[in-house]
């Protein structure tokens, strides 16, 4: 069971630790640089090729794509296939059981006779959008600030460190709760607030990676040719950070979806009649005595989506770091 180290090249740098908000410690190794000089070819297959090899990852990606497409097509689907909208009530059909004959009732109806399946589709859109939006905010802020701090170092770095550590000293979920309860924010504000909760972790991690990357030969070489800071960051550092950022993103979106659904469960977050998986689940729990089947739809979808996202993130990370994946023959 020899440990593989098929690559020759620069020695590995010290792995840096990322500390998440809940004391979670996630470990990421340094990215491998590919194609440094034309003669030395990287024998390891590309990330995408590796991902394609694992059936689990393929399934995860397909699930996500399907859900995404369904969510985007929700309007068209509700008009042509199901015939009802997500907020159309039909009090006579309250708590209707799932009925295969009527497409709108494939998954039954809730307490107002609204089609569960149509609402799930629209909820997919909202939940995914909120998750993606929040992750986007988080990553944008985190990557930009982390990159700047890692690249420029000095006072910029010190400022970021101080800012990040202050933010992290705030019990973030607690503040999120407070803000949600006190201000009852709409979906856009919610997205921003969610995104701003975890940026320090992202920023510090990106900073760490940038710090090590900037010492690489290819960076020095580029600088020697007179490339501007911006060009360096954009063309050399960012692409190497990308795979790790993708991993972070996948996990982030998953975490945001979970947070949003927890908030909705507590009666905060996305408010009805707008459907989100979280508030549909709360609704279903309230109706357990009358319509127990309502619980399965939103709960399973949240679970499956987040699971797929986490699996994807894991798979990307394993593809980048050879030590974590399955052992390969040298």
């Amino acid at each position, binding site marked *: 069971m020899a440990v593989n180290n098929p690559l020759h090249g620069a020695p590995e740098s010290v792995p840096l630790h990322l500390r998440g908000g809940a004391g979670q410690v996630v470990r990421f190794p340094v990215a491998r640089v590919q194609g440094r000089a034309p003669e030395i070819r990287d024998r390891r297959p590309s990330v995408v090729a590796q991902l394609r090899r694992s059936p689990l990852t393929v399934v995860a990606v397909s699930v996500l794509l399907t859900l995404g497409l369904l969510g985007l097509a929700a309007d068209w689907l509700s008009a042509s296939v199901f015939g009802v909208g997500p907020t159309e009530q039909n009090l006579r059909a309250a708590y209707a059981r799932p009925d295969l004959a009527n497409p709108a009732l494939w998954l039954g109806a809730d307490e107002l006779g609204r089609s569960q399946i149509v609402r799930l589709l629209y909820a997919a859109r909202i939940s995914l959008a909120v998750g993606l939006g929040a992750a986007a905010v988080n990553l944008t802020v985190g990557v930009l600030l982390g990159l700047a701090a890692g690249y420029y170092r000095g006072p910029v770095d010190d400022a970021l460190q101080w800012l990040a550590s202050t933010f992290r000293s705030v019990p973030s979920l607690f503040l999120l709760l407070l803000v949600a309860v006190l201000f009852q924010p709409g979906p856009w504000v919610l997205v921003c607030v969610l995104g701003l909760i975890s940026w320090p972790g992202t920023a510090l991690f990106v900073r760490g990676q940038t710090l090590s990357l900037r010492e690489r030969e290819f960076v020095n070489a580029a600088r020697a040719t007179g490339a501007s800071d911006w060009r360096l960051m954009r063309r050399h550092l960012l692409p190497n950070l990308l795979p790790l950022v993708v991993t972070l993103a996948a996990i982030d979106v998953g975490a945001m979806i979970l947070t949003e659904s927890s908030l909705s469960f507590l009666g905060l977050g996305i*408010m009805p009649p707008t459907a989100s998986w979280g508030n549909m689940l709360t609704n279903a729990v309230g109706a357990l*005595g009358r319509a127990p089947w309502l619980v399965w739809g939103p709960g399973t979808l949240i679970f499956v989506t987040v699971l797929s996202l986490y699996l994807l993130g894991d798979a990307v990370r394993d593809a980048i770091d050879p030590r974590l994946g399955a052992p390969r023959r040298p």
Partner: protein
Amino acid sequence: MPHRRTGPLVRMVVILMAGLLLIAGCAPARNATSPAPEASDNEPVAGGRLVVGAIADAKVLNPVLSSDVPSAEVWGRVYESLIKVDPQTGAPTPRLAERYEVAPDGQRLTFWLRPGVTWSDGTPFTGDDVKATAEAVMRSKKTVRKSIFQDIVGARAYGEGKASTIEGISVQDNVVTIRLEKAFCPAITEIGLFGMIPRHVFGKYMDGQDASKNIDEAEENNAPTVGTGPFIFSEWRPNDRIIMKKNERFAFGGPYLDEWVYKVHPDTTTLAAALKTGEIDAARVEPKDVEGLQQSDHLAYFSYLAPGYTYIAWNQLRGGKEFFQNANIRRALAHGLDTQAVIDSVLLGQGQKVYAHTPPVSWAYERSALVEYPYDPARARQMIEAEGWKPGADGIYEKDGQRLAFTMYTNSGNKIRETLLQVATEQYRQIGVEVTPRTEAFEALNERVGKSKDAVYGERGGHDYDAAILGWSQGVDPDAYGVWHSSQIRSGQNQVGYQNEVVDRAVETGRTSCAREDRLAAYKAFNTQLSQDQPYNFGFAVNTLLFVNKKFQGVAPGPFPNVQNGYLWNVEQWWVKP
């Protein structure tokens, strides 16, 4: 590769986990165990424990400072009041006072106290305790109950420190006489139903001369040491349970039960689950839980109408929505909402339509003169068009460049109201009225509807909302001054800015002419006018749905809970059938 056995660490962990689960699993969910009482057919037997479930914890165990229902439910077991009311009719019955009298001019109340009543520590209950209660309220800075006592002669002066006692309350042996500055018909029920606190416990926090001293910080507010009620306080674990034990010196017969526990649950689902498993013995539930709980053999089900109703308020002092000032539009809106459908499908039948303010269970209610607005979308459209509105391109009515569109609010977390909001949005759209639904936290909504100012009518008392779904819970007395009198628009609860002379006079008469016939006539006129004018869409009243473990005998709930009694009004007579 040589076969590896699972490491010792892993083994240890597995064994530990199994052990833990085993121990935990072997301690089955226990129901409240209480010593089994002796058998005998219909003779009450002593012993047993009652566990009552609720979804909110009590806040303070003192009638002077409490302002919420859970607190009242708990301190109601500890502090008795001068009178009680019959749960079915609302008629006063004796308690601490065995007899009372209201002078014809409505300005003097006399209570004859029942002899032999003592506090749980043996100190006799006297008229001085009544006086102490009134004094505590008037000097308290944190109470919201001053209006109950402030009309007593000398009360205000005492509160401000200008007097060292309340002049208008005189105590002579067991007779307490209360003089009011002006006739106030609700006084008898308000003062009569107020929990009486002991002078010998709270007196030490007060000082006749010094108005800055009060009972607001007393620790007995959260841990009552003595009481006149059937149970005395034992322990309070915040957000978990309050434990009360039998008061041996209870003067009104009983209690048979040894212990009474108030248990808090975070929401109605866990509450219903706890009822099912028998972890709690009694609780009020929501309509959606009824069907599931009816399947449990061990639970008895009670459903009765409670005074109070859910309504849609039309803000008649709203800039830009002056169409709400037109009674015909309001009537059309009444025709446009299928309230019965909401009762049937959302309340699952557990409710009743309401047409005016006074609740159907009140003695002042008279159905005959009330106007009904049956669900009739065609008629609604007709009425709107008769006012000069024409349907626009999107189907919504328009007139002089204005659309018949408005925002409707309700508070989040109340399922019934949220659902009504969504139903109303849909149904109004079908009669050409565009409603934008919004839910807000109760606190924010409260502020919006009660405090914030409308841009145009703010000075006159207009608030910052178009329409809102809210609710009133009502007491025994039909007095409606605070909600409907025009003087209450600026600073009171008249949140829709409604002003009508007939109504004004009726509510004034109702609270100052205390003869029964006078009040009946006044409230008849009052309700008739309201149902004609539709300042609210008077929606529906929701039934109180109660489940109690069948083993408890003596349960007899009715619509007239005073706030502090509810279905526990006679808990001293409950006993456990073995």
